């Protein structure tokens, strides 16, 4: 159902993907002080990959991502949990935030940032899981047209 290989879409997707991803990381990192944050950034990132998916199909997306979207979800949840460990280590209440300043560049690193990255990955992974499951590539379409598929009844 998706005609991959349309010239304009392909070129645009290729050009936009890095920009969109860059923008999503930008949103993620600045989220604590300016509009943005893990949830929004995750949605922007998902948008970027969805565009690529429409242009090149699921197989190419998978080849580029190297991991399945479900792995992203798992990694996100794991990061979310891991961000609670420092507080636990110091014997403080669950989810107490910890802050460190990275020397030289003066960047504020914190457990909340780790948690936000976890949110980012979970959102990205969940949206991509849903969309890639819904998209069937031309190849599958072709194969399925031979057999009866229940939802076409």
């Amino acid at each position: 159902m998706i005609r991959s290989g349309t010239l304009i879409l392909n070129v645009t997707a290729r050009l936009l993907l890095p920009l969109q991803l860059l923008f999503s990381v930008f949103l993620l990192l600045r989220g604590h002080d300016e509009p943005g944050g893990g949830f929004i950034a995750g949605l922007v990132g998902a948008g970027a990959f969805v565009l690529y998916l429409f242009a090149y199909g699921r197989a190419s997306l998978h080849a580029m991502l190297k991991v399945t979207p479900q792995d992203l979800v798992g990694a996100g949840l794991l990061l979310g949990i891991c961000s609670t460990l420092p507080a636990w280590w110091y014997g403080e209440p669950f989810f107490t935030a910890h802050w460190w300043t990275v020397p030289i560049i003066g960047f504020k690193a914190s457990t909340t940032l780790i948690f936000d990255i976890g949110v980012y990955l979970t959102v990205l992974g969940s949206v991509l899981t849903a969309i890639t499951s819904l998209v069937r590539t031309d190849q599958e379409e072709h194969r399925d047209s031979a057999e009866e598929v229940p939802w076409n009844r």
Partner: protein
Amino acid sequence: MQLAVLGGFVVAGMAPLLHRWFGARTPMLMALLPASLTLWLLWQWPTIIAGNVLLLEWAWVPGLDITLTFLIDGLAWLFAMLISVIGALVLVYSGDYLRGHQDLPRFLVVITAFMMSMLGLVLADNLVTLFVFWELTSITSYLLIGFNHTDLAARKAALQGLIVTAGGGLALLAGFVMLAVAGGSWSLSELITQGEVLREHSLYTALLICVLIGAFTKSAQFPFHFWLPNAMAAPTPVSAYLHSATMVKAGIYLLARLHPALGGTDTWVISLSLVGALTMATGAFLAIQHTHIKKMLAYSTIMALGTLTMLLGIGTQGALVAFVVFLLAHSLYKGALFMVAGILDHATGTKDVTAMGGLRHAMPLTAAAACIAALSLAGLPPLLGFVGKELMFESVLEASHYQGVILILAFIAAFLTLAVAVIVALRPFFGPRRETPKTPHEAPPAMLIAPVLLAELSLLLGLVPALLDGLVAAVVTGISLGEVRGVKLSLWHGINLPLLLSLASLAAGVLVFRYWHALRARLARLEPIMARGPEAGYEALMRGLVNVAEWQTRLLQNGYIRNYLVMTLLVFLGLVGHALVFRHSPNIALSIDVYFHEAVAAGLMVSGAIVACVMRSRLAAVAALGVMGFSIALTFVLFSAPDLAITQLLVETLTVILLVLVLFRSPRFADLSTPVERLRDLVVAVLTGGLTTLLMLAVLNGERLPRISDYMVANSQPLGHGHNIVNVILVDFRALDTLGEMFVLALAAMGVYAMLRFHVVDYDARHPPTPRENTDD
């Protein structure tokens, strides 16, 4: 200690990795974890014996009164010691029992996780923490019983165990909440000092019933005992560990722990001693009907668990001393016997005791360990089991309620157990040699070390029970209601009534053994009555559950999204409408004061909604919904909420993409609903919209509660180090909520994935389809 327990879970997760590096030596390596815990506990021994209580404090969620504080007194020490020692032995044993099994890493993961959950359970000072570990033991036990997951019976037994224990867990949770409300604390160490308050409290009976259901299901008390024998589908190391020494004793542990807080009342004494005595007799009675060695052991475990419950019910100092000794004796001999059963199964290829005989020449060490353990089970001198049984008879004679009934049941249990001990552990080794499927051979050292060590401990402690004086006194002080006077254990109590009872049960037991076959033939005639036991009740309950589920699925979830919506909205209407009208009597004042651009945004929204309703093309309807969504985003911008606006825009974009993808798969547009149905939908929609509007107006005009956002605005920078309040709330102030939402999102994604990728084209029960391979990976 907390680090050790939680670190243990990490070690459990690393088991597959360790297995890749160290291969067959991994179980030995992992046994170092419980072994080092044993050493640590031994190091604490002097403190415990002196009657001190170690309180290792650790905050967790102080805002909700949940701590990870560990409480180590005599009782916790004894249980932790049993868990660590038998845990280490079981790991060593399973290394050989499951040698070369492809799922050995998985086994190691789950059994180590179980071990840590169990330790957490007996050490936790906080009710919530205890409950978390309690449920973890149920889940890990489910995975261990169903270890041979290709076997239908194993899966069924695992599910049954889970449903019974987790169902009891629900009751327990309710009991804990009431306990905390009545006692005013979530901390066990504080609750056990609140005994008088708790026993007088109006919630006492209700909370006691709930706690008892939790403990009885976990510890397989009558009438919940049926899951335990079925759980014997698990590999033998699991049975030796979970179903004799540890998990099934969790309920007993809880009862003992709460004895000072809840015990001593007539309700407690009568229910525990009667249920315990009944369980005891039932277990022993069912044990002699079987020939499957593991099932016989399982039923005798039920007998032992019943004894322990009964002793806690009687609750005098003598009974509590008997409780501790019996508990220890049972863990030692039953662990050993289960491991012997595993060795016999390995060596001969059968689990039927009637098929084995004369094995003592082929496997002398196993035979020796089995004999010692069996004599302890039978309660014969000079084993620890004898000391336990004497003390048990003594305390039954002290029982204040229903003494006669309990005594008779205890006597029946004692002589039947003696017969079981002889059948299980002596029969395979003595008598004429029988042919078995495999040629028997002595077990490898790694499998022998555990039963031999446990059996020897039974013997040593039986000969010199005074070694236990300090520990027993420490435990009894912790769980007793009143003052504890000096505790002295000895093997020989002189000629008294308990000894005479022991002798009588010995004679009766030998008679049962002698005429076992004839007796079983008689008992087989009772089969039709037995078939109506509690297990049949469980089956009927499960069938009923499935029927109700089917009925409500047909009614409420019939696959048409409009029906889901109507149901959801009607429930919303009913509940919110009721609360709004009858509880709050809304005070609604309408003041129309809008700017032109706000009116434009609102107009766009309304027209988008109307167009979406009347369009006959789906794509156009989606576009119209998009217009509505974007105007909502516009509204957020107008009211300066940029984060919300961005989120709304992105969600709207992705929703349109998802909808388009779904619409491609939908059947052609058709009128499925009749005009009447559409009228109904219209009414529901209008009512919902109207109610929501009313609700908004009521909230805006109602009595002003202090606004939480003021706090957030004021503290976002000083406490959260961030200027974006929305983000600070999401990742810091309300991070726990966000974490929960992340899991919800992940689950939803997995649901979509499972639904769309693993669809079953044509289900045929006789040939279940294999999931279709993904083409892309």
